């Protein structure tokens, strides 16, 4: 059943129930038309008579009293007759008005009012109350009340039905629109949005839907970017190799000496492209491990100095060719807990990066310092350079895979990076429980530091 139908039918059921309850209430009240209601009605008549008598007494107007009482008789049909007795000293005057209709049950009541100024002056009013008419009048006023109640009940029922219909219409149209939106998303139209300005649950649902749609679109873009980055990184060196090979063949065939020298040069280029492919594939494998949560580091007690010395040595020749000096400023430090191969990989990545962005005449260095946080001792290793540095937005993207903007590598020597290195570095340090931080000033240099626990 549709939500709308269900809502309306439930409202109708609820209304029928409450109308039934109302009807039962009316019935019950009518049944228990109590003596107290009758008494109250009679007291009302009594009070009216007394007030009238008092007014007439103050005005000392006998005729006025009778016409007042006549007026009351119209207002209260149960007042069937009245007889007034005026006392002035020893003298009394009796007057009457109306008579009990035959066959009715009339009870006689008496009201006495005396002038507080002169005790000699008083008026007695005897009046008959027709019990049947009294009951009838009580019942009549109750009936009027019930009619009003019934009317209010009906109006409310109609209103609530209208409101429900309206609400169910908005609800079902929103849900329908959300459903269509979800359908569109499932058909691959990611990033569709829905406009809905309200602060209620429906608005919240629409917001969540919009967020989901945007995130799906982002993920899709990320996937496409990943695929195109990988494709580019694989195809570019492969294509170069493929193009170099026939050139080499032709040169070798020609047997010319300069051609042979050129062929040798091309073979070196092929070699560096093969290295580049290899590095990229290794990085990809690491990224795959990270994404699957399988990047595991085996933490053992290790000395940092030999590793940093080895890495610095490894880059010595490369640095020299770039006109950059490498300084290994590591001071003796306690052993740390680390995966020696992974820590070497981290240092290689960081120094390769520094070299790439440091112009000729610059400096790249490794240094360390001891830190203490609560009871844990840490060694912080810093790789610094006097390179071009980076701004805030670059710093933010630094550790994201494939985040290397093309403009980042503008005018930079050597092959472009894959944008995976620092992502892997961060994952390795995360696995060690350490922290990685970047300090950088555009144009002045960058320092990347990471911390490792001291072996206890």
């Amino acid at each position: 059943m549709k939500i709308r139908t269900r809502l309306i039918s439930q409202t109708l059921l609820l209304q029928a129930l409450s109308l039934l309850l109302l009807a039962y209430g009316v019935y019950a009240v009518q049944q228990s038309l109590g003596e107290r209601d009758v008494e109250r009605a009679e007291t009302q008549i009594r009070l009216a008579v007394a007030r009238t008598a008092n007014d007439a007494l103050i005005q000392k107007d006998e005729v006025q009293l009778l016409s007042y009482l006549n007026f009351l008789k119209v207002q209260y049909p149960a007042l069937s007759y009245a007889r007034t007795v005026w006392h002035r000293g020893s003298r009394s005057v009796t007057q009457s008005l109306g008579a009990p209709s035959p066959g009715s049950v009339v009870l006689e009541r008496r009201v006495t009012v005396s002038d507080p100024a002169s005790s000699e002056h008083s008026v007695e009013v005897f009046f008959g109350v027709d019990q049947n008419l009294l009951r009838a009048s009580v019942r009549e006023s109750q009936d009027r009340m019930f009619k009003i109640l019934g009317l209010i009940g009906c109006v409310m029922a109609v209103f609530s039905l209208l409101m429900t219909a309206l609400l169910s219409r908005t609800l079902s149209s929103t849900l329908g629109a959300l459903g269509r939106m979800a359908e569109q998303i499932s058909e691959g139209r990611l990033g569709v949005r829905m406009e809905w300005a309200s602060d209620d649950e429906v608005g919240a649902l629409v917001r969540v839907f919009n967020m989901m749609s945007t995130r799906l679109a982002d993920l899709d873009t990320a996937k496409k970017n990943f695929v195109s980055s990988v494709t580019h990184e694989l195809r570019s060196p492969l294509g170069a190799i493929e193009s170099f090979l026939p050139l080499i063949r032709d040169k070798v065939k020609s047997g010319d000496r300069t051609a042979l020298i050129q062929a040798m040069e091309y073979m070196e280029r092929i070699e560096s492209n093969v290295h580049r492919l290899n590095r990229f594939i290794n990085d990809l494998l690491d990224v795959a491990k990270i994404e699957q949560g399988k990047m595991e580091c085996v933490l053992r007690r290790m000395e940092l100095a030999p590793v940093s010395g080895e890495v610095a040595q490894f880059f010595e020749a490369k640095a020299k060719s770039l006109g950059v000096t490498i300084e290994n400023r590591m001071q003796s430090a306690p052993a740390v807990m680390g995966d020696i191969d992974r820590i070497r990989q981290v240092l290689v990545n960081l120094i390769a990066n520094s070299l790439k962005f440091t112009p000729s005449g610059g400096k790249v260095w490794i240094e360390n310092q001891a830190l203490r946080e609560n009871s844990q001792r840490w060694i912080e290793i810093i790789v610094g350079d006097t390179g071009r540095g980076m701004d805030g937005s670059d710093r933010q993207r630094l550790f994201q895979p494939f985040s290397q903007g093309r403009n980042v590598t503008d005018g930079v020597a050597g092959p472009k990076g894959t944008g995976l290195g620092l992502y892997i570095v961060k994952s390795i340090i995360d696995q060690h429980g350490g922290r990685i931080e970047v300090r950088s000033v555009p144009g002045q240099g960058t320092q990347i530091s990471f911390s490792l626990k001291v072996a206890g």
Partner: protein
Amino acid sequence: MASKALIIDDEEDYRIIIADILKSGGFEVREARDGAEGIEALKSGPVDVVLVDWMMPKMDGEQFCRAMRAESGSKDIPVVMLTVKQTTDEELEALHFGVDDFLVKPFKSAELLARVRAVLRRAENRRA
């Protein structure tokens, strides 16, 4: 007289490869590393044909083409776009910004020379 070719590619390997092929085909070759350098190179001397990579930093192949077509001195020079993209849509799109022919990386030496000579011949016919 040898035709003068301008190679614009951010990847050194490809500049070397294309230069080698063109030289073996009897061309005079100049090189630029991105679109901006390419525009400079166009201003600094006569060029008969341009080979430009699509994906480059700073100014990519498309921006370069538009900039080059806007200059009166270079608006008629034939352009061969080098690309790893291969979709027809993108090729069609590129025709709008004034590319004369396409070459998908990696390419054969003979194909490169044939296409470059073809666009040169068409350009000469247009002028005649």
